[in-house]
């Protein structure tokens, strides 16, 4: 039989560690290790729309998955939302800020004269969720002018862990991995759309290893890996 | 007929006209500063396009506006000693001298260097030459390119008297033995009278 080829997996950048761990585990089972390209979901979706020769796509949000599905680039019946994440409020590790997340919480007061680090609420998923949560909690109008939007969750996280911002909104997985921050509170799941990561095999995929890897991600063994990094699974 | 010239060209706001014929031998251009001597040499070398007219050198027509003839500078085979020298600053004296050299004919390399007194300068870069040394290298470069005719624009301006005499003898030899048409610009009456068969006032 001809040697099996590595599938190409396109994955949202925030999955860096967990997806690499999954790929390693998959390779240990005797499969060719997937070649994973990590970038912003938007960039990956555009590459797919341009005919990129890839097999599997894991997006950090649903709209970009919808976008390529509408373009007929998703293999029928393979799109599954399999990961969840929580949205949390973080502060620098040595900060003694206290705040209970809830309606009309005194977020502005807690910021003092600093700013709230967040992924760009105009487009980056984590920022969109953050804006939803702050809106539903009634604090968006007061805090809207006090944001420090970064290019990604990671950018927001760095601002907090460097002490440039006293508070920030990131995913639970990010907070957990960064020793420079501590979690102040978790946003109630009801305050924002579910943070979910859909996976799909692409319509143009010719490599059966791709679909096999997607199935592995959805297996209990696969999901366990992601749970280890703090994701919720469905 | 070595030079047969009739042309007009424009420099800034001034319009310059030239018309003369000169028989064999050396033709001296004589005229005050700013009269247009260098401009004429540039036109003959093909570096300046006349508005109209005709340029014939040694029987070959190089430019004729009526007949739409305009030989490219690199095909005119002139040995031009520029008033501003124009040595190539990025290569050694040796490579400057060899730049236009052809495999056949022409002057003997060693003998020419000897006469010009530049044999010791071959490995130097032009920027390190004294004024007179640079001028002699410029003369050498033109002579060694085996030209069909010579254009010399005050070639001896910075050359000392002793060397000047030797170079003049070399020019005379080229004029007489090789029978090259020479157009020679100088402000020195004595030099002109010694060399020139024809004197053209500009």
């Amino acid at each position, binding site marked *: 039989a001809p040697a099996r080829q590595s599938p190409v997996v396109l994955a949202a950048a925030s999955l860096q560690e967990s997806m690499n761990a999954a790929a390693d585990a998959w390779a240990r089972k005797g499969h060719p290790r997937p070649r994973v390209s990590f970038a*912003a979901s*938007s960039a990956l*979706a555009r590459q797919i729309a341009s005919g990129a020769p890839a097999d599997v796509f894991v997006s950090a949000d649903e*709209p*970009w998955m*919808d*976008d390529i599905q509408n373009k007929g680039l998703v293999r029928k019946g393979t799109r599954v939302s399999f990961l969840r994440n929580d949205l949390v409020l973080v502060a620098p590790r040595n900060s003694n800020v206290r705040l209970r997340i809830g309606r009309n919480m005194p977020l502005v007061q807690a910021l003092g004269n600093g*700013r709230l*680090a967040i992924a*760009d609420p*105009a*487009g*980056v998923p984590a920022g969109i969720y953050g804006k939803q949560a702050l809106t539903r909690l009634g604090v968006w109008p007061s805090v809207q002018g006090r*944001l*420090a*939007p*970064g*290019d990604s969750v990671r*950018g927001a996280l*760095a*601002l907090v862990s*460097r*002490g*440039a911002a006293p508070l920030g909104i990131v995913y639970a997985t990010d907070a957990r991995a960064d020793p420079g921050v501590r979690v102040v509170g978790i946003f109630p799941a009801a305050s924002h759309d579910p943070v979910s990561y859909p996976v799909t095999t692409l319509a143009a995929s010719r490599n059966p290893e791709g679909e096999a890897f997607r199935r592995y991600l959805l297996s209990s063994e696969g999901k366990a890996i992601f749970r280890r990094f703090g994701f919720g699974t469905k | 007929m070595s030079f047969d010239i009739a042309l007009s060209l424009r420099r800034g706001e001034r319009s310059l006209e030239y018309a003369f014929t000169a028989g064999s031998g050396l033709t001296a251009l004589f005229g005050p500063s700013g009269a247009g001597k260098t401009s004429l040499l*540039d036109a003959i070398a093909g*570096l*300046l396009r006349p508005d109209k007219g005709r340029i014939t050198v040694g029987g070959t027509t190089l430019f004729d506006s009526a007949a739409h003839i305009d030989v490219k*500078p690199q095909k005119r085979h002139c040995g031009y000693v520029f008033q501003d020298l124009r040595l190539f600053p990025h290569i050694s004296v040796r490579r400057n001298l060899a730049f236009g050299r052809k495999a056949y004919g022409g002057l003997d390399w060693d003998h020419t260097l000897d006469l010009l007194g530049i044999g010791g300068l071959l490995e130097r870069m032009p920027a390190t030459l004294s004024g007179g040394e640079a001028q002699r290298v410029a003369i050498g470069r033109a002579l060694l390119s085996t030209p069909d005719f010579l254009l010399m624009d005050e070639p001896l301006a910075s050359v000392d008297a002793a060397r000047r005499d030797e170079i003049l003898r070399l020019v005379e030899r080229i004029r007489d033995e090789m029978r090259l048409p020479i157009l020679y610009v100088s402000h020195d009456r004595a030099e002109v009278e010694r060399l020139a068969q024809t004197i053209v006032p500009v």
Partner: protein
Amino acid sequence: MQPLSPAEWEVLVLSLKVGGVAIVATLPVAFGLAWMLARWRFPGKVLIDAVVHLPLVLPPVVTGWLLLLAFSPNAPFGAFLERTLGLTFLFRWTGAALAAGVMALPLMVRAMRLSLEGVDRRLESAARTLGAGPWRTFIRVTLPLSANGVLAALVLGFARSVGEFGATITFASNIPGETQTLPLAIYSALQIPGSDSQVVRLAGLSVLLSVAALVLSEWLIRRSGQQRGRHVI
């Protein structure tokens, strides 16, 4: 094309301000460095050259990150600047200008260095014999003779400033009206599916901005070129 919305105007004006301040503030620094690299010889020169090139070599996000380490109020240097000069950069348009300036620096230095290396030093010595000290010689001879390089530096620097994204968003954040320059607005738009037309519109604005700068510089180059005159062939 539709007229600009107020938000687009805001972005455009901010980009102009950031880009303009960035290159004007960077120009003297860049010229000084170009001078050093073109004229001086000293041990460790390559080191300075390397530092100048850093923002070109490193991914912009890393540069932004380094700026954060140096200029945030938590850092000793940033705290010092705030205390003594009242200068803060974080989350301010000044920070966007700083990031843009730093990113433009290597391009500006190189353009000016190239021109300085082409200046005929014999003309400087002529100025000295005519009674001009080093400073007057610089202003009246060296600087005008390297004007093309300064101009090129301004154009390159301005274009780079108008296009700078990664360092700015990392260091100064993407705050509408304060640090959201054109590239940051474009990036925001790029993240939203189906917003291509908005991206194209904003990109068009960037292009217009720098075409204007280019036309201006070409005109200046041509003017100075005509003055030097006398082309042969």
